[in-house]
Every structure is written in structure tokens, then in C-alpha cells.
């Protein structure tokens, strides 16, 4: 017997469900795998759903299982790619860079250019200076960047390589011209997470241009204008969001500089040409950004050090927590209006009204529903705030890279709404903790990244994919989640899953399909 057929080719989805494969699997399991008895597997499976298991699970002090965070240099690469003609250069082991490039490409379905200084054992012993000297020279010659932004892997950090000194030496040895921009940031993987790395790299770049390029140029003097700077932070929706923010700023007629704009480099056309560099903040704009009246960050926990640096230069800094929804967008727009002295145009007010209209139309389907959310600290805050606004309850909100300050801020948010009474924030916890929470305190929907599908499979909680990375759905990063239009997208995403779930749980013919309604 054979199932494969040239006219109807079966791949892994169906092939292995054939009788001959099933028999093969059964024999392998029975004879060679030394499997635990089915009853034992079932017993442990059930035990892992209990409050008793949860207690042991939450008593963990060392083991991390399925975390929702990555390491610093990933964030540094993200930040660096937002600048014109910039090639991120990660000093340390080369495998890391292969990982960052793959990770971003799997999410954005786009190329991600980044180089490594390829340090190996000898560099571990003698330091990576030669790797920096040769690496910068090669990168400069081959890829002709306008800027090389350096960050570090944990290897270089453990052996204590000094980027400032190394880059200086490399310039003295002629790897790149003396005046060529090589900002840098130490980004140890054993401190913080990818959002910390974003912050460090962004701060490194701003500091480089404003504070005298590591002692090689005069520090910039500030002459205040009524422009603003905008920083998006590490954001899986950066492509859609940046375009939406530009549209909003243009509607408001404000002068602005986006510091770190990845929306072009991660969304280049397929027209026969590969653009290694595209878009990004112009280097001259980074310099003139010092003159802005203020800087707005969409992600507080992603830009703490950067904003401190900017504030120290005399600018007002305002930060949000990945603002999603009516009130969050109101506050964002009012801050822009206040700082720049420009009014919020009628067009945006109309968009606001449309969003409110949409919420009014559909909120009855969301009202009172329980949600679990996990992701980066700012995103989880932004989504929780939106759910509260919709009358839903974000019961479990978890950020592996959230700290105590984040948890406190979440508590304040919960306390501000009658829908937040039963809600709790979990800083520093991972998706195996979330698994316990979903068993012992079930919710209607889970919001998270692609890895949430394992929780959906294990606990039966329907997953709404919002976050980073999203590997198994395409193109969502092209749609904004910021602005009133962005909130509309989030609303539709949530509603779609709710309606899908209603249909999926009512379509049993002759049993439950009285509720399988045609109009909802």
C-alpha cells in the first residue's frame, strides 16, 4: 500500500497519517523508545494542571522554561537598523549574529543584514582587538555603510573587551576613516533583555552624535526648535506603526524626527533589486534632533537610559507604554500637540470617533471576557489598558522581562478600572508559569506571540497573536497597532478570534448549532 501520489502530493500534513506510517510509529514506540506507560503519562499530564503543581512551578528559583524574552544584542541590532545606511556589527561570537538575522527574518519575512567580528578561542584568550580591526575594515570595504553600529555578545562582555578603545585603535590602524561614524554600546546578554539592548544601542547612537563622537568632535550645542523626536522602541509592528505615526505627524503638521525607523529596511519591494539599506533616520537628522523641544518614546521600559540622556540635554521627555486604544492614543496626541504647539486636526478627531463607534458596535462581545496577556513590559501594559477600556478583564498579565516597577505600574492600571479588580501582573515569569495559570485560573482568550500556540494546544485557551515574534502568521507587522487606526486593527484582530471561537464551539450539527448564528 502506498499513499503518495504525483497528482496529489501529500506532505507532512497528511502523509504521516497514513496506515503504514501509523503502524511504523507504533512499533517504534513499543519496541525501542522505552516509553512510560500511557497511564503514567496521563497521570503526570493531569497532575501538571493542578494547584499543587502550580505551587511547585512558582517555587522555581533557577530554571526558566519557555521565556518570553530574548537577549540584549537582538535589541541593539533592531535599534541600529533604524538608521540610514547602517550596518549593525556585533562584536563577539559569530553564531549569535546568525541567530539574530534568522529571528528577525522569520518575523518580518525580510532580509536582515548584520555582521559579526567572528571571535573564536584565540580571541577569548587574547581579546578581540584584531577581530575589531579586521572586521571594521572588511565591513567598510564590502558593504559601504554610512555608519557601523557596534554592540557586543556575552562572550566579548565576559572577557571584558573595551569597545571605545578598540574602535579608536581600529581607526588609528585605518580600518575606517577617522571621521566615519562608529557608535557603540555594550550589550551584555546576562543583563536585562532585548529591550535593554535596544535602549543601550539607541543611547549609544544618540550620545555619539550629540556628545562629541567619543571625543573626536565637538559636542553639539542645542538651539531649541518646536520640533519633536519620536522613538518607537523594540516593536514587532514597527513597519506599520512607523508609517502610521508619520501619517499622524504629517496630519498634525509637526516637525519631527523619528529616531530609529526600521519601516523601510524591513519592507523593501521585490522588484529585482536587493536593497541592503533602505530608509532609516538620516545621520544629519540625528544631529539636528538635539534641537527638538521634546522627545516622545512609545515604550518607557525600552528607552529609560536613552530618555535620561536626552533629558540631560534639556529636552522634555515623555514616555508611553505601547499605547493602544482610545485613551492611550488621546494622551499620545495631546502630548504631541502640547509639546509642538500644534492642534490635533479634525481628521484625527474623526478617526477617534470612528474607533469609538466601532467599540460601541462590538463591545458586547468583549465585555466581561477574561484574557491572559504576555509579552514585553510596554506592550502588555498597552494591551491591558485597551482591554480595560473595552470592558474586558486582563486577568493574568505576564512579562518575563518585566521588573518590579512594571508590576507596580500594572497594579496602578488595574486599580484604575472596575474591570481590573481580579487582575494580576507577573514580572519575571515565563510561559511555563503561564501554563499553570491558564489551568488553575482559566481565561477566555490568550494574547501573545507565536509561542503561545503551545499554550493554546495544552490548555485549550484560544490564542490571539499579538506580539513578537510572530513566525506562523504572515504580514501582520505591516499593520499598525498605534493611533486610532491601529487600535481599530487590534480590535478587529481580537473580535475575529472571538467570533471564530463562537463558531467553532457552536457548529455541532443538531446539537449546538442553534447558536451558530448568521448575524452576530
Amino acid at each position, binding site marked *: 500500500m502506498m499513499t503518495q501520489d504525483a497528482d496529489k502530493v501529500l506532505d507532512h500534513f497528511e502523509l504521516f497519517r497514513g496506515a503504514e506510517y501509523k503502524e511504523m510509529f507504533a512499533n517504534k514506540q513499543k519496541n525501542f523508545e*522505552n*516509553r512510560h506507560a500511557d497511564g503514567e503519562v496521563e497521570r503526570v499530564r493531569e497532575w501538571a494542571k493542578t494547584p499543587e503543581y502550580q505551587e511547585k512551578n512558582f517555587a522555581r528559583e*533557577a530554571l526558566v522554561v519557555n521565556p518570553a524574552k530574548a537577549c540584549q544584542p537582538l535589541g541593539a541590532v533592531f535599534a541600529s537598523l533604524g538608521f540610514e545606511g547602517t550596518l549593525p556589527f556585533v562584536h563577539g561570537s559569530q553564531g549569535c549574529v546568525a541567530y539574530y538575522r534568522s529571528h528577525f527574518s522569520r518575523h518580518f519575512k525580510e532580509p536582515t543584514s548584520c555582521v559579526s567580528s*567572528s571571535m573564536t578561542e584565540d580571541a577569548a584568550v587574547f581579546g578581540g582587538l584584531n577581530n575589531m580591526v579586521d572586521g571594521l575594515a572588511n*565591513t567598510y570595504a564590502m558593504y559601504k555603510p554610512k555608519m557601523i553600529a557596534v554592540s557586543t*555578545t556575552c562572550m566579548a562582555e*565576559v572577557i571584558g573587551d573595551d569597545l571605545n578603545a578598540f574602535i579608536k585603535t581600529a581607526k588609528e590602524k585605518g580600518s575606517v576613516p577617522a571621521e566615519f561614524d562608529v557608535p557603540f554600546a555594550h550589550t551584555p546578554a546576562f543583563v536585562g533583555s532585548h529591550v535593554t539592548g535596544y535602549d543601550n544601542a539607541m543611547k549609544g547612537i544618540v550620545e555619539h552624535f550629540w556628545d562629541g563622537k567619543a571625543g573626536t568632535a565637538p559636542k553639539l550645542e542645542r538651539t531649541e526648535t518646536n520640533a519633536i523626536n519620536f522613538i518607537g522602541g523594540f516593536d514587532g509592528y514597527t513597519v506599520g506603526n512607523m508609517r502610521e505615526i508619520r501619517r499622524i505627524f504629517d496630519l498634525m503638521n509637526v516637525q519631527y524626527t523619528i529616531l530609529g525607523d526600521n519601516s523601510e529596511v524591513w519592507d523593501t519591494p521585490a522588484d529585482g533589486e536587493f536593497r541592503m539599506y533602505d530608509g532609516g533616520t538620516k545621520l544629519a537628522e540625528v544631529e539636528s534632533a538635539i534641537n527638538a523641544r521634546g522627545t516622545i518614546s512609545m515604550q518607557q521600559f525600552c528607552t529609560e537610559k536613552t530618555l535620561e540622556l536626552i533629558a540631560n540635554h534639556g529636552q522634555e521627555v515623555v514616555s508611553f507604554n505601547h499605547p493602544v486604544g482610545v485613551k492611550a492614543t488621546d494622551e499620545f496626541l495631546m502630548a504631541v500637540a502640547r509639546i509642538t504647539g500644534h492642534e490635533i486636526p479634525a481628521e484625527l478627531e474623526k478617526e477617534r470617533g470612528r474607533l469609538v463607534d466601532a467599540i460601541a458596535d462590538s463591545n458586547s462581545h468583549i465585555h466581561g471576557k477574561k484574557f491572559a496577556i504576555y509579552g514585553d513590559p510596554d506592550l502588555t501594559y498597552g494591551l491591558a489598558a485597551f482591554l480595560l477600556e473595552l470592558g474586558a478583564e486582563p486577568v493574568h498579565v505576564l512579562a518575563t522581562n518585566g521588573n518590579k516597577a512594571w508590576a507596580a505600574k500594572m497594579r496602578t492600571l488595574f486599580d484604575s478600572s472596575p474591570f481590573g479588580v481580579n487582575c494580576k501582573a507577573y514580572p519575571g515569569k515565563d510561559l511555563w508559569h503561564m501554563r499553570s495559570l491558564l489551568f488553575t485560573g482559566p481565561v477566555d482568550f490568550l494574547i501573545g506571540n507565536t509561542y503561545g500556540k503551545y499554550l493554546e494546544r495544552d490548555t485549550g485557551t484560544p490564542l490571539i497573536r499579538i506580539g513578537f515574534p510572530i513566525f506562523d502568521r504572515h504580514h501582520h507587522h505591516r499593520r499598525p497597532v498605534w493611533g486610532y487606526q491601529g487600535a481599530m486593527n487590534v480590535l478587529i484582530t481580537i473580535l475575529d478570534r472571538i467570533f471564530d471561537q463562537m463558531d467553532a464551539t457552536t457548529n455541532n450539527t443538531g446539537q449546538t448549532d442553534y447558536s451558530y448564528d448568521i448575524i452576530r
Partner: protein
Amino acid sequence: MSIVEPLSVEDIKARNKELIEEVLRIYPEKTAKRRAKHINVHQSGKSDCGVKSNIKSIPGVMTIRGCAYAGSKGVVWGPIKDMIHISHGPVGCGQYSWASRRNYYIGVTGIDTFGTMQFTSDFQENDIVFGGDKKLSKVIDEIQTLFPLNRGISVQSECPIGLIGDDIEAVSKNKSKEYDGKTIVPVRCEGFRGVSQSLGHHIANDAVRDWIFDKSDGKPLAFEPSPYDVAIIGDYNIGGDAWSSRILLEEMGLRVIAQWSGDGTLAELEATPRAKLNVLHCYRSMNYISRHMEEKYGTPWVEYNFFGPTKIVESLRKIASFFDDRIKDGAERVIAKYQPLVDSVIAKYKPRLEGKTVMLYVGGLRPRHVIGAYEDLGMEVVGTGYEFAHNDDYQRTAQNYVKDATLIYDDVTGYEFEKFVERMKPDLVGSGIKEKYIFQKMGVPFRQMHSWDYSGPYHGYDGFAIFARDMDMAINSPVWKLTKAPWTPKPQPLPLAAE
């Protein structure tokens, strides 16, 4: 070449040599000298491809290579499904390699199998300063509490472990004692070791030898040995590859007692030295343990290739030659059984793919192993290269696979690969996720040849049908006719040799 005049072999050689010279011109002198040793034009009759390999990558050039951790955790150990593999160190390595390799398995994940999970000790600054051994002990304790059905644990070292002087071997031994001789395997696969994934494979192989074989020697087998017991070595079951291979071996009368390591278990690893023959697919990543088993246990090993019917037939017969007539007849029976499928696949797809050219850049065995499958479909591989090959891989490539004048590029850089493809204009590029979108934007059809672009299996007869379908859908997708807006001038085909 679809848009240029056919060239003679000598013309192609001249063009390829010119292309190599041109590409090298971009580099600083020192780098050009080093890179020149890694790129060549294959001359038929030579015993290797005329390139140096397994040498450090050059800083700053955008190598596509990974690291030793990727070779050990990502490739060799990760797929062993009933063990828990700790990514020991900071969070990133385990995060980026989490479930991305598509090593299919069957089991209840999180309860008795753990393949698509990310276990890490998530190092913080304190662990770097004071050492991570205590944390590792605690990690193992917590695994024992929360995942009681795990059959074993491996410790996959990330860069800091070797730099801060942790003694993971001591921790592993102590914990093994504490847990009644439990299998706990320390693996020194720090990412800075060696020049690529390759050393990680070797280190991982050695860890199996030292921490599994040496401990389980003399352990009674759970099954009665038979004269037809074989183990599949070096198949990671990507998209189910090992399954569509195993079925053929079993159909010819052999009994597969172990899979290394796709859908594999600790029990299978332990039983492998009792196999009568080890059949080795990915030579690069598992030749070490195969040689060890030959030396210590006298188990012979044979390389095989289950990509495309020509190589499958050759391989089935080669494997059968180690056994009696029952198996030899079995191989012929299998070949005959699948011949109609092969015929119908080729009848359907060859006319759509005949004469199409392919450039490859992959790891392990694929830069050579898949060539036969393309040729079965009438396609031609005009350039190929390896991420982490050694010279013995290039010897195998030269002697058994590539044609005269094929462009060979070892540890290719982003710049080189792009230029080669731009000038040689193949009809298809087969490489990885980092390369995929670059070439698609250039208008060149592409298939990921690490992950099978989320398809598969590609091994065996069942896999060949999928391979053919996928190559056809890549090359003949209507999207490639849309890349140029109709109002832009058409590109003029140029005779490349004259450039």
C-alpha cells in the same frame, strides 16, 4: 541558464574564474588573499573541489555560519525527545533556536517529551561573577521536580560557561549520583569554540560516547537482537525525513532500532552499539560517533543518500549489500514498488523543470546530497558550497556529485553569494532563511534547504514527490513575472562570458 546562449564548459570555466576575480576585488588585500582559497571552479577528475575549508571565518564579512552550540544543541542533541536539554547561560541562544529546526517527533510535549521547549538557566550578572554551578544544580533539581518523566538531561554550554571556569562535569556527576545514576550529560559546546557549527557536532558526538555509551555498556537490551538491526545515523527528521527513510529500510526487511537524532530517545542511543550496521546520512555531523562505534563495537557504517530516486536506488542496494539475499531481494522489491511513483513524479514535473539551473549554499550534507534529486528532474546544479564542510566533504562532492566547471564557494560571504547569483542568474537558489528574502527580492525563485521551507519530508520516495512539487512551485510561480512594473524598460539579456 534561461536567458543566455548556452556556453561551452571551457567558456563557463573562464566566466566563473573571471567572476571569482571580480568578487575578490571588493576585499582589502589580506582578506582577498584569504577568501581566494575558498572559492574555485571545479575541474572534473580532481579528487576535491580545490577549496580550503573548516577555517575561521573572517571578521566583518557577513558569514552565514553559526556556532558550536548550534551544532550541538540545535543539531545533534536537541531532537532527542525524551531528554531535557538545558541551554546553559544567557537566555538568547535557546530563544533563537527554540523549535525552529522542525525536528518532528511524537510525544506529549512537556510531560514525556520536550523537543519544542526552551529550557535555560537564564544567566544574570551574578552568575557570571560568582559562577553558575550552583544555579545549574538547582536547575537540575527543579527539572526533576516539575518534569519527572524526563529520561535524561543534557547541559548545552553557551559562551560564558567556558570563560568563567564553571565545572559542569562535576555538577553533572554529582547530580547523576544524587538521582540514582540518571543520565546527565555535560556538553562543552560554547559558541566560541571552533570555526562553525561543525566542532559542536564533534563535541556532541564525543559527549554521547563519554556520557551515554560508556555508562550504558553492558546494560541489557529491551528487545531481542536480530541479524537485521540497523540504526539511522544523521537524520534529524526535519519535516519527517527520518520517517520517510525508516519506512523504506523496514520495507526491505531491516529493523531500525534507533534514530539519531530526529524523533530519537535515550533508549535508542543506548541500544545503537548493538546494531549490525549504522546507516549514515549526514556524514558531517555524525561520522565521529560512527567511527567510534566501528572501532569499539565493530559496527560497520555506510553512507547513503535518500534524495531523489537515482541515489535512493543506489543507496538501497549499497545498504542491502551488507546483508543476505533476503534483504537484497527486499531492496529490489522496494525499488520496484516505488518505480511507478517515481515515473509519475518525473513525468509530471520534469517537463516543467528540465534545463533549469540551481545554486546551492547549505550545511551538512545537502550541498552535495540533493544534486542527484535535481538531476533526476532534469535540472542542473551550477554552483554549490558548504557552511561548515571539511575537506572530506569536498572530496565526496568532487568525486561523486558535481559536474565540471561548477562554481564552488566555501563559507561564502553575503556579498559573494549575492554577486554570484546576480551574474549567474540561476533559475533557483537553495539556501537558508537569512538568504531567502534577499534572492526573492532580486526576482530569483528560492527554497529554504535547511527547513524545507516548512514543507517536507524530502527524504525517500515519498519525500521526492514533495521535493519535486516544491521546486516546481518555486520556479514556476506566477509571482516572478510580476517583479517588474510593465512601464519599466525590460532588462536586456547579456552573453555573460563577454562581460
